C-alpha cells in the first residue's frame, strides 16, 4: 500500500469525530446564535418531552462516562439522587481544570459555552434541581467572560429562569470563580470551597449524592461530561454508542501537547491510539522520538513508546497499567530528563497538598527533598528504594486521590527509567541539556546553519 493510500484509510476524516468542537472555527462560535444554527438547544426539547426518570435511564443507556478522570457512568450519578426527599437538589459543574497537562474544558468553554449550559438544563430537569453552579478555576478570565455572557444570553432567551420552554422547570445558574487551588478539582473539596471554606476533601460516605452542597443531594459532574449530553439527546443514544467500544462508548476530546508537531485538541471516538493521533498529525517534532507520555495528566502513570498502540479508552489504558484520566496526552521526546519532569510534578503535588492528611502532606515533602538531591547529583542508590517506599506510603493511604496522583509518576518512572535515575547518581548530576528540549531549540539550530 502506498503511503497516500494508507493515510486515506486511517486518515483524520475517518478517525476523528468533532462534535463539541465541530464549529469552533466559525466566527463568534460562543454565541447563542451560532450554537442554535448547529442544532443548539434541540437536545433540551427532546429531554423536556421525556419524564425525568426516563431521561436518566436514557443517559444511562447511552453509556456516557465521566470525562473528568474517574470515568464513573454519568446517568448512574444522576440516579443516585434520592427523589421525593423534600430537600433542594444541586448540580455542581466541576470546571476547575487544573490537572497538569489537562487543557480540554478551558478551550471548550471558551469556544462553545452553550453546550455546557444546555447540558446543565437537561441534567437539572433529570435530577429535579432548580439551582446549578459552575465552579470555574479563577485563573482563566477570558473563559469567565464567555460564561457570564452565555448565561446572560440563556436567561434572555428563556433557556434559564422560570418555566423553561413551558416545561414548568425553574432553574437558576450561578457562575462561581475559584481562587487558585488544585485540590478543589476533587469533588468534595470543591463543595467545601463552594461553601466558602478552605478547599479540603470530605470523608465519604456520606457521598455528595446524599449529603453534598449544604448537606443536600448533589451531583458533581465534569464540564465535558455535561456538555456531551445535549448531542446524545439530539442525535440519539444509538449514534453515541456507534462510536467507541461497548464499555467506553462515544466521542471525547484528546489533548495532545509537548514535543509533537501539532499540539492541540483532537475530538474522536474513545479507543483511538496515540500512534493514530501522531500519524495523522505529523508525529513528533522533526528529528526526534517519543520517550515518555501521560495518557491522562500527570496523575496517571506514564507510558513509553511501547504503549503507542494502547486503545485510549477506560479499559484499554487500565489494562496497560495506567488510567485514561483526562486524556491529556503530554508527549516528551528523547531530549527530556525524566527525573527533572518527575521532580517538577512532585513539587507541584507538595505545593498543592491541602495539608489535611499526614501521608500526603509529609510524604510529598520528603519526595521533593529526595528528588531534588538526585537531580542535583547528590543522591545515593538507596534513595531510589526510599522513593518507592515513600510513594507506597502515600498511595492508597491518603485521604483523597491527590496522594495517589503524586505516587503515580514516581512508581511509573522508576519502573521504566530506573537506569536514568541511576545515571544521575553515578554520574553525579543530570546528563541532559535542558536547552535542547525547548520549542526553539531546533529553530536556533536552523538559524546557525543559515547564518
Amino acid at each position, binding site marked *: 500500500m502506498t503511503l497516500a493510500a494508507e493515510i486515506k484509510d486511517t486518515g483524520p476524516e475517518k478517525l476523528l469525530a468533532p462534535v463539541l468542537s465541530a464549529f*469552533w472555527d466559525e466566527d463568534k462560535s460562543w454565541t447563542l446564535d451560532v450554537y442554535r444554527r448547529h442544532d443548539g438547544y434541540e437536545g433540551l426539547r427532546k429531554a423536556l418531552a421525556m419524564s425525568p426518570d426516563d431521561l436518566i435511564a436514557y443517559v444511562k443507556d447511552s453509556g456516557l462516562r465521566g470525562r473528568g478522570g474517574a470515568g464513573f457512568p454519568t446517568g448512574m450519578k444522576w440516579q443516585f439522587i434520592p427523589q421525593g426527599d423534600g430537600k433542594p437538589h444541586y448540580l455542581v459543574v466541576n470546571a476547575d481544570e487544573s490537572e497538569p497537562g489537562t487543557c480540554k474544558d478551558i478551550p471548550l468553554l*471558551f469556544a462553545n459555552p452553550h453546550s455546557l449550559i444546555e447540558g446543565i438544563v437537561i441534567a437539572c430537569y433529570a435530577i429535579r434541581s432548580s439551582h446549578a453552579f459552575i465552579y470555574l478555576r479563577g485563573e482563566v478570565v477570558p473563559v469567565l*467572560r464567555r460564561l457570564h455572557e452565555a448565561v446572560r444570553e440563556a436567561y434572555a432567551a428563556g433557556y434559564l429562569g422560570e418555566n423553561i420552554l413551558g416545561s414548568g422547570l425553574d432553574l437558576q445558574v450561578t457562575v462561581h470563580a475559584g481562587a487558585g487551588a488544585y485540590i478543589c478539582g476533587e469533588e468534595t473539596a470543591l463543595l467545601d470551597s463552594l461553601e466558602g471554606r478552605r478547599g479540603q476533601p470530605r470523608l465519604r460516605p456520606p457521598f455528595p449524592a446524599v449529603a453534598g452542597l449544604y448537606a443536600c443531594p448533589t451531583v458533581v459532574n465534569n464540564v465535558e461530561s455535561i456538555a456531551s449530553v445535549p448531542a446524545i439527546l439530539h442525535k440519539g443514544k444509538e449514534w453515541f454508542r456507534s462510536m467507541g467500544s461497548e464499555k467506553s462508548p462515544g466521542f471525547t476530546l484528546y489533548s495532545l501537547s509537548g514535543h509533537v*508537531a501539532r499540539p492541540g485538541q483532537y475530538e474522536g471516538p474513545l479507543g483511538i491510539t496515540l500512534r493514530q493521533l501522531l500519524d495523522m498529525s505529523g508525529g513528533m517534532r522533526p528529528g526526534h522520538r517519543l520517550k515518555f507520555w501521560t495518557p491522562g495528566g500527570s496523575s496517571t502513570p506514564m507510558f513509553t513508546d511501547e504503549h503507542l498502540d494502547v486503545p485510549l479508552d477506560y479499559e484499554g489504558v487500565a489494562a496497560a497499567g495506567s488510567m485514561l484520566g483526562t486524556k491529556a496526552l503530554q508527549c516528551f521526546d528523547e531530549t527530556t530528563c525524566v527525573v527533572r519532569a518527575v521532580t*517538577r510534578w512532585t513539587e507541584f503535588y507538595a505545593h498543592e497538598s491541602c495539608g489535611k492528611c499526614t501521608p500526603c502532606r509529609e510524604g510529598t515533602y520528603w519526595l521533593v527533598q529526595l528528588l531534588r538531591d538526585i537531580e542535583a547529583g547528590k543522591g545515593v542508590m538507596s534513595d531510589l528504594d526510599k522513593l518507592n517506599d515513600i510513594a507506597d506510603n502515600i498511595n492508597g493511604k491518603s485521604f483523597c486521590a491527590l496522594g495517589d496522583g503524586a505516587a503515580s509518576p514516581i512508581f511509573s518512572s522508576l519502573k521504566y527509567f530506573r537506569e536514568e535515575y541511576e545515571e544521575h547518581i553515578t554520574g553525579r548530576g543530570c546528563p541532559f541539556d535542558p536547552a535542547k528540549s525547548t520549542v526553539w531549540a531546533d529553530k536556533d539550530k536552523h538559524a546557525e546553519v*543559515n547564518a
Partner: protein
Amino acid sequence: MTTTPSEQGVQAQGVSLGMPQLPAPDYPDDVRARLEADAREVIARYPDSRSALLPLLHLVQSEEGHVTRTGMQFCADMLDLTTAEVTAVATFYTMYRRKPSGDYQVGVCTNTLCAVMGGDAIFEALQDHLGVGNGETTDDGKVTLEHIECNAACDFAPVVMVNWEFFDNQTVDTAKRLVDDLRAGAQVEPTRGAPLCTFKETARVLAGFPDERPGAVEAGGSAGPASLIGLRLAKGEMTPARVVHPRGSGGPQDQPPAEHLSSHDAPQQTSASDPAHPAGPVSEEEGE
C-alpha cells in the same frame, strides 16, 4: 496549600508579639457603601451567604489590589463570620495577594510541560531582565513576577499569563518584550483574551461582575489555533502527516510578522520526506 517559610514571614511582619493587633481600619464611608451594595448583589446569588466568601475576597482585592485586614474585616462583617474564619480562607488560595503588588501580574507557567518546552528559561530570563525574584514587584509598581502552575493551556506551551489572560507560545524574546511594553504603558493584546486591564479590574470580573468594556467578550476570536487542529484535520483542511509548524498562526504577540518571512517558515522535513531522521511512529513502521 502548605505555606512556605517565606510566606509565613510575610504574615508575621504585621504581628507584634505579645500584643493583640488593633482592629483593622475601616474603609472610608463612601467606599464601604459602594462595596456593600456590590457585596449584597454577590450574596444574593447563593442559597447560603458564606458561599459568597471567595467572590467577596476577589471584590476587596479589586478595591485595594491585595487582600488587606480591612478587606477581610469587611468580608467578616458582611457574612457574619469571624476574621479568623476569613483569614483561614484567604490564606489558603493562591490568587489572593497578601501584600501590595503590581498592576500587572505576570505568571510564567513552570509546571513540567511548559517548563521543559521553555518556561524555565523564560522565567529565569524575566527575573534577570526585571531584577526581581518570584513574587516580587518592579520598583515602578507595574509588574509582579511569579511562576504559576499548569493553566490548562499546555497545547500552547510555553504559556505566560498576565492578569489571567493567555499569552500563548512564548519565547524568551517575546516575554521580555511583553514586560517591557507593560512597563512602558503600551496597550498589550493577549493571544486569547481581552485587551489588558489592571489587576484590580480583573479581580472585579472574578468577583462575578461581567466585563462591560465593549468588545471584551469577543476579543481573542472563537478559539486559539491549537484548539482547531483536530477540527481542521477532520475537515480535510490540512494535509495529514505533513509537518508545518503550527505556531506561525499564534497571533501577533508571539510571532511578529518579520519572522514569518524567514527561512524558518519553509515546510520542515517530515518523517515521510526525511527517512534518515524519523520523527515518530509513522516512520518506525515504514523503516522495516
